[in-house]
């Protein structure tokens, strides 16, 4: 189905099932421990041996030799695979570094071997018996040191630099100016399930039960890496224990499980040990961001400039921190620049809302600072500079999400490109009222509650909506139930449920009558999960398949498909009603289709908006920071399931609190690795860090986005929230921290004396 004209009324608008806050249909499995994740497939693979991955002890250099003798002779060991005996391996198209290193080493903990044994205990012990001799080389590990030699780099298909008007002269002429530099650290996804795969060969056919967000990409990547035809690769990933971008790509667990299984002559399963995950896989890169804003005395932005530096391995990509600055606020003269430093740290890549997450961390502090300089309320300052058209018309709509790799053509500029929907102002107005913003005291350090200094802060939320082809197969079974099959994944997002709701609405059956089967490469290719594109696109694909199935059913039952209504398990037109199941009396009916998009996303900028409100308290003695209240107001198109969508947003807010207050991969710039590579030393928020979270969705349907009229929402929640926290800390203490995370050591020297 081609979607090339704004959506009109369709069966989804009934909202009998879609739009209802129903419980997740996979809930009973997940809460009873009966949902099977990639390493738990005793049911499908009863005799898997255990693979243990060995990581490089150096960041850069070469392996001179690996002595495997002791490991080989160890009890239970079945096979050892290194680059020496793995056969020729290609680098995946979406990987920057090789998944099996050697002799060249590209980063710390790059996999250099997998040891396969009968038991996990034997594999782990034997893995630690390898004696590896390295030639260590000097590497570059310091982003700040690499700034001078950093090169212009585009964000995906976009140009590295954009400019409208003349930023330089406009900024110089602005009566009120801000020129500040902000830094964000390297961050880790730290999803709860480490990367894991179980691989089994059947002749030259390979099946991998894995934990992956993007099944079709994964098939292509496995085939390319192992030099085999795609047709011989099957990926199965029905449950994914969190991803946040870490599982967009095939990683070493999948490739080494496959190689180990081939070498051992039996199925092998591999999970990355937690201490290896951080340096072995990908992470969100650190950024250094310079932001300049010039305004008139009454607060109108006349000039805005945003430059960002980040680092990656040679051949890698920059963070897209400047993305939102091209379209979030008005201002006639503007520029952005993106620079990439070549670093020999582990591979940088997408983590939840890549680009906007880091960019909003900086931009939204800058907006708070600017409002203060102007003596304006930070909400009023943002509202004053709202824009209903994209101000950076010279540039292509930016996107750093890897999904954009598949974009069909470069997007052409157009004058005054409007937003399909933009309710940023309403988000702020609604939130201000709910949160009690009018009680804020603008002068910092004024509110005290016992031992605590109290402050509140605000920030915009902004994240683009992305459209991409997505297919599904829908089958009316002979018993009148409906089965949906698509390679879409549910990484905690609620895909099972919203896909089930979509099919139930379209076919006029209760949700209980729909079976949803996901995450199998033998199913039609979906959008996959990432970049908050999964919800809208995958359900739109199911919608398309359902439209086709409805036509087949109508024909079978002798209805005019344009007039037939599907509800309550019946097909009706005029005064005739026939049970839906009758259409499948002679055998099930199956329809497959995809949603494909025209140019509505070129005519209209499709973005999601929100406002974050945060109250923090800071211990007046220790400077410990705790979040006391949080509210997000979001406008993100039709909300397909308010319960699961809310969970996505508050989950993202939680991750944003982590980014604000504790998350930082510490680089040892001598050795070239992330030092704190476990869950005790890389701190993410725990229960005690997170208060009750409040959130509101504004009423919105977006007919430009898809027949579902929905947009992404999963990543909007993280964009801006860290800045709202940082702004609240400033309001509480009067200490402006521009280097994340905002930790007590950055405040304590500037707090008033105790006593």
């Amino acid at each position: 189905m081609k979607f090339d004209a704004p959506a009109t009324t369709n069966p989804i608008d009934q909202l009998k099932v879609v739009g209802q806050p129903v419980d997740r249909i996979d809930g009973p499995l997940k809460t009873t421990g009966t949902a099977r994740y990639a390493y738990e497939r005793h049911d499908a693979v009863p005799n898997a041996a255990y693979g243990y991955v060995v990581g490089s002890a150096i960041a850069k250099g070469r392996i001179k030799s690996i002595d495997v003798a002791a490991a080989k002779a160890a009890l239970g060991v079945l096979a050892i695979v290194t680059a020496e005996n793995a056969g020729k391996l290609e680098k995946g198209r979406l990987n920057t570094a090789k998944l099996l290193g050697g002799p060249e080493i590209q980063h710390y903990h790059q996999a250099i071997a997998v040891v396969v044994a009968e038991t996990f205990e034997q594999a782990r012990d034997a893995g630690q018996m390898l004696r590896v001799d390295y030639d260590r080389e000097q590497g570059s590990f310091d982003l700040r040191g690499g700034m001078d030699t950093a090169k212009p780099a585009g964000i995906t298909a976009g140009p590295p630099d954009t400019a409208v008007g003349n930023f330089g002269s406009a900024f110089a002429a602005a009566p009120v100016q801000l020129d500040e530099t902000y830094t964000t650290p390297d961050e880790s996804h730290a999803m709860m399930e480490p990367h894991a795969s179980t691989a089994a060969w059947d002749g030259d056919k390979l099946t991998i039960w894995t934990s992956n967000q993007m099944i079709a990409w994964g098939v292509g990547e496995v085939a390319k890496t192992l030099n085999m035809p795609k047709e011989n690769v099957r990926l199965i990933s029905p449950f994914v224990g969190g991803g946040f971008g870490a599982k967009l790509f095939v990683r070493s667990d999948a490739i080494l499980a496959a190689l180990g299984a081939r070498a051992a002559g039996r199925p092998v399963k591999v999970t990355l040990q937690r201490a290896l995950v951080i340096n072995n896989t990908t992470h969100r890169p650190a950024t250094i961001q310079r932001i300049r804003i010039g305004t008139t005395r009454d607060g109108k932005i006349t000039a805005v400039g945003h430059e960002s530096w980040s680092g990656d391995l040679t051949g890698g990509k920059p963070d897209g921190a400047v993305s939102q600055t091209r379209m979030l606020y008005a201002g006639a003269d503007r520029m952005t620049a993106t620079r990439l430093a070549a670093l020999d740290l582990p591979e940088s890549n997408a983590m939840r809302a890549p680009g906007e997450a880091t960019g909003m961390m900086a931009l939204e502090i800058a907006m708070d600072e600017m409002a203060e300089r102007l003596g304006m309320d930070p909400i009023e300052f943002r509202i004053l500079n709202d824009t209903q058209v994209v101000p950076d018309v010279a540039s292509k709509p930016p996107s750093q999400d890897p999904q954009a790799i598949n974009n069909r053509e470069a997007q052409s500029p157009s004058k005054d490109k409007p937003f399909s929907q933009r309710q940023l102002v309403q988000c702020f107005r609604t939130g201000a009222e709910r949160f009690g913003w009018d009680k804020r005291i603008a002068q910092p350090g004024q509110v005290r509650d016992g031992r605590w200094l109290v402050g509140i802060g605000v920030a915009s939320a902004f994240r683009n909506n992305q459209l991409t082809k997505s297919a599904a197969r829908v089958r009316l079974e002979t018993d009148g139930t409906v089965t949906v099959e698509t390679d879409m994944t549910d990484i905690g997002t609620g895909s099972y449920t919203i896909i089930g709701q979509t099919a139930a609405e379209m076919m006029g059956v209760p949700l209980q009558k729909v079976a949803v089967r996901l995450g199998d490469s033998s199913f039609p290719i979906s959008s996959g999960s990432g970049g908050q594109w999964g919800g809208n696109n995958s359900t739109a694909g199911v919608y398309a398949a359902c439209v086709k199935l409805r036509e087949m059913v109508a024909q079978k039952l002798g209805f005019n498909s344009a007039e037939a209504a599907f509800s309550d398990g019946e097909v009706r037109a005029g005064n005739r009603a026939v049970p839906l199941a009758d259409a499948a009396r002679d055998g099930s009916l199956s329809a497959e289709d995809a949603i494909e998009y025209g140019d509505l996303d070129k005519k209209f900028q499709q973005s999601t908006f929100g406002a974050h409100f945060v109250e923090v308290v800071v211990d007046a003695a220790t400077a410990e920071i705790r979040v006391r209240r949080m509210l997000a107001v979001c406008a993100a198109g039709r909300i397909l399931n308010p319960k699961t969508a809310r969970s996505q947003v508050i989950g993202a807010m939680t991750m944003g609190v982590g980014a604000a207050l504790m998350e930082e991969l510490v680089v040892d710039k001598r050795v070239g690795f992330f030092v704190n590579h476990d869950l005790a030393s890389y701190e993410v928020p725990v229960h005690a860090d997170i208060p009750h979270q409040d959130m509101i969705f504004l009423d919105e349907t977006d007919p430009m986005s898809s027949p579902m009229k929905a947009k992404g929402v999963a990543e909007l929640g993280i964009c801006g929230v860290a800045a709202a926290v940082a702004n609240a800390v400033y309001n509480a203490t009067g200490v402006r921290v521009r280097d994340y995370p905002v930790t007590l050591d950055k405040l304590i020297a500037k707090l008033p004396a105790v006593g």
Partner: protein
Amino acid sequence: MGTAASVALGATAGRAEAQAPLAQTLAAGTPSLSKVSFTVNGAARELELDARTTLLDALREHLHLTGSKKGCDQGQCGACTVIVGGRRVTSCLTLAVMHQGHDITTIEGLGTPENLHPMQAAFVKHDGYQCGYCTPGQICSAVAMLNEVKAGIPSHVTADLNADIELTNAELRERMSGNICRCGAYSNIAEAITEVAGRQA
């Protein structure tokens, strides 16, 4: 419950056969193979294990009770939480052989998809999970935690060590802090547990 147990039993029998040659090799080559018997979800289990096997791996890899999750294998995430002798523990930091005669309850022993434990039902109702990977640990932890409150065990946020403990929101969040949820379902988990606690009280 019946279904889950019989599936696991069958799988265990199969595995024991497959491992028999290995067991002999191990027994001949090293003295590290040890016998242990304990009760899991009401059923007596006897295992002959490499002494290095953690309780978590014994459950997941030998008894095929994969509900208990391995998130870190270092005691830093809480995903492996099970209940031993009524107390919640991180099963990744204890050896199976150290549990001779113990009574172990895992997520599979609390309820089944068809017959959810009240805590499981509350998690579903309040959407107290997303990816589901930390969920069994959260639920086992929550069930045991409520008993700790009843038993008067203090926490870091207990204001008066010598008074009865009330399960305030702060108490609940502090006591659940050993179970990390990266999807950030904390707010919903707290609501689920509060509902169950209220019902219990």
